[in-house]
């Protein structure tokens, strides 16, 4: 387990404070946040490249805060993988083992096992310059995994990879993680890129950890407007509440399962809102469905495999759907009905 306690790191005028994390052994943990929020500074501190001002870093019940990187038994893959250009792939993988003065025979067996496992046996005698992004990633991982580290840190490993290969590399990373069962801490600035890989995510903003949770909880139960925006929640509104009814824009009443009073922020994920077809709508309304609204389609756009529809119900509501037949049926209509499920409305007290 990796435990980070009250870490404070300063870098000229930028300060990271109150960083508290607990990462389980074998977990695929993702540190996520916008550019400049301090993700890389944090990971470099965990690796041992930077010294924190205060706080503690524990790796497997050992306080490593004052240890040098070479003493921490960690693996580190920076953005460009930083494979040593003057060494062959084999020498790159062997580097950590040689630093630990392992026997030649042992080094050879580790290299051949890892190379076979990661499908890079044919690259061993090559230099690293001509390798593809995927090959570089596998070589860097082989080098890091060779020393059997407690944790592997990956700093935006997909940032220099083109969109077509990103998904392949994501899958590869996840597959390698599940095979080796080593703790992975992966830094990324893109929620979409890593949401399918993570066991848990820590969202970082402006030097502080905003939320640590599972992907689902971060998406559907964000603790702040920033987390909601960062996880691409499209429907974020301010409202006033008294009991379990929220008044938005003075004319939209939303029923929620929360009971609270005062000004609140509500978030509704765009993929859970339903578009009702005429025949169903009247039936569902009669049967006592809450949060059914009549609205006008003001925008309809297709991106990748998802259709984004913006419906004005007094407030603009964005809906994502992959039901193309439904889209075909409703796109010519001027008025449609939507239903916002009660359980999908998340309330944040402000």
């Amino acid at each position, binding site marked *: 387990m990796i435990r980070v306690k009250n870490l404070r790191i300063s870098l000229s005028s930028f300060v990271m404070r109150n960083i508290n994390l607990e990462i389980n052994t074998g977990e695929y943990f993702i540190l996520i946040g916008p550019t400049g929020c301090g993700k890389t500074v944090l990971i*470099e501190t965990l*690796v*041992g*490249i930077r010294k924190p001002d205060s706080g503690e870093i524990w790796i497997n019940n050992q306080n490593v805060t004052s240890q*040098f*990187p*070479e003493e*921490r*038994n*960690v*693996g*580190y*893959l*920076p*953005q*460009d993988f*930083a494979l*040593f*250009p*003057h060494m062959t792939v084999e020498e790159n993988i062997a*580097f*950590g083992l040689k*630093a*630990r003065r392992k026997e030649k025979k042992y080094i050879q067996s580790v290299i051949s096992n890892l190379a076979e496992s990661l499908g890079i046996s044919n690259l061993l005698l090559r230099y690293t310059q001509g390798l593809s992004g995927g090959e570089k990633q596998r070589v*860097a991982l082989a*080098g*890091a995994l060779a*020393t059997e580290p407690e944790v592997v*840190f990956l700093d935006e490993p997909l940032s220099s990879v083109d969109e077509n290969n990103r998904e392949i590399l994501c899958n590869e990373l996840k597959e390698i993680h599940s095979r080796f069962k080593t703790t992975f801490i992966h830094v990324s600035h893109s929620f979409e890129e890593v949401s399918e890989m993570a066991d848990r995510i820590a969202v970082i903003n402006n030097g502080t950890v905003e939320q640590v949770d599972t992907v689902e909880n971060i998406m559907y139960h964000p603790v702040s407007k920033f987390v909601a925006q960062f996880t691409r929640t499209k429907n974020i509104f301010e409202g006033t509440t008294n009991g379990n009814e929220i008044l938005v824009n003075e004319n939209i009443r939303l029923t929620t399962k929360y009971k609270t009073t005062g000004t609140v922020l509500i978030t509704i994920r765009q993929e859970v809102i339903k578009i009702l077809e005429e025949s169903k709508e009247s039936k569902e309304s009669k049967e006592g469905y809450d949060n059914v609204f009549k609205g006008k389609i003001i925008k309809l756009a297709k991106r990748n495999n998802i259709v984004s529809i913006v419906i004005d119900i007094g407030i603009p509501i964005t809906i994502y759907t992959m039901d193309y037949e439904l889209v075909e049926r409703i796109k010519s209509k001027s008025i449609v009905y939507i239903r916002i499920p009660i359980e999908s409305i998340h309330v944040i007290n402000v």
Partner: protein
Amino acid sequence: MSGSRRFVYVLYAITILFILSVCWLFLSNIGYTDTQSILELFSRPWFWKSVRLSLLTSSVTTIIAIVVGIPASYALSRFNIPGKTIIDILFASVIVLPASTIGLCLMVAFQYEPILKIQQALGIRIVHSMPSIIIAQLVLALAFGIKAWRAAFDDVNPRYEHVARSLGSSRMRTFWKVTLPSAKVGILAGIVLAWTRAMAEFGAVLLFSSTFRNRHETQFSHIANFLGIDRADILPVGMWMEIEGGNIEQGIAIGFVLVIITLLSVYALNKISGKGSQANKV
């Protein structure tokens, strides 16, 4: 004619003018010497002693510069040393100052009372001695070397070092196995630059070490005699002495020897850093 085309023609014209000027500079000197003078120079024992002395002092200077300058350059490149800016300014000053000023500073520094007392206690005298040539050459060779070596270390992405250390490699092992090989081209270029600068040094050596050719043979150590560098001056000083003595042809002949040595060094420098310059061609 378009503006772009005109600009390219102007650049070509300036370059050709510059090349012609350099050629004229060297070729015009050929008229002032002849094969006879060069052969005569080669037949003089003091000339070969001068060549030996120049090669020996420049090489020793370069070795000391490597031992001192490479670690210092690495530290300047990687660590937040207090007063780093002042150190930078000082090194830059050494490069741009007249070399004779450096020689004068060295002379005054080594005549400074406490330093003089140390020399007396050790039974040595640095000013105007043969080893002082190395000290004078070293100041300039170091300034040039450190500039090149620091740039070479600056060019090495620190991430390589971070990865190496995360893999269990100590800071020293990382330096030898990762940083130094990655900076190889710049390091070699710096070595050639330091050696060439030491070889070409004149003003600082003249003031700090003076001349040796006209001194009595008893003034030289056994080592100098053994190495065959007694009563000899480094080539730039030798050239100056010939010209001062009215032997212009011989002076120019020594000048040609220096030009050939420098051209070979610069050629080596270009060869070493060739990979880098290839990338900049459009």
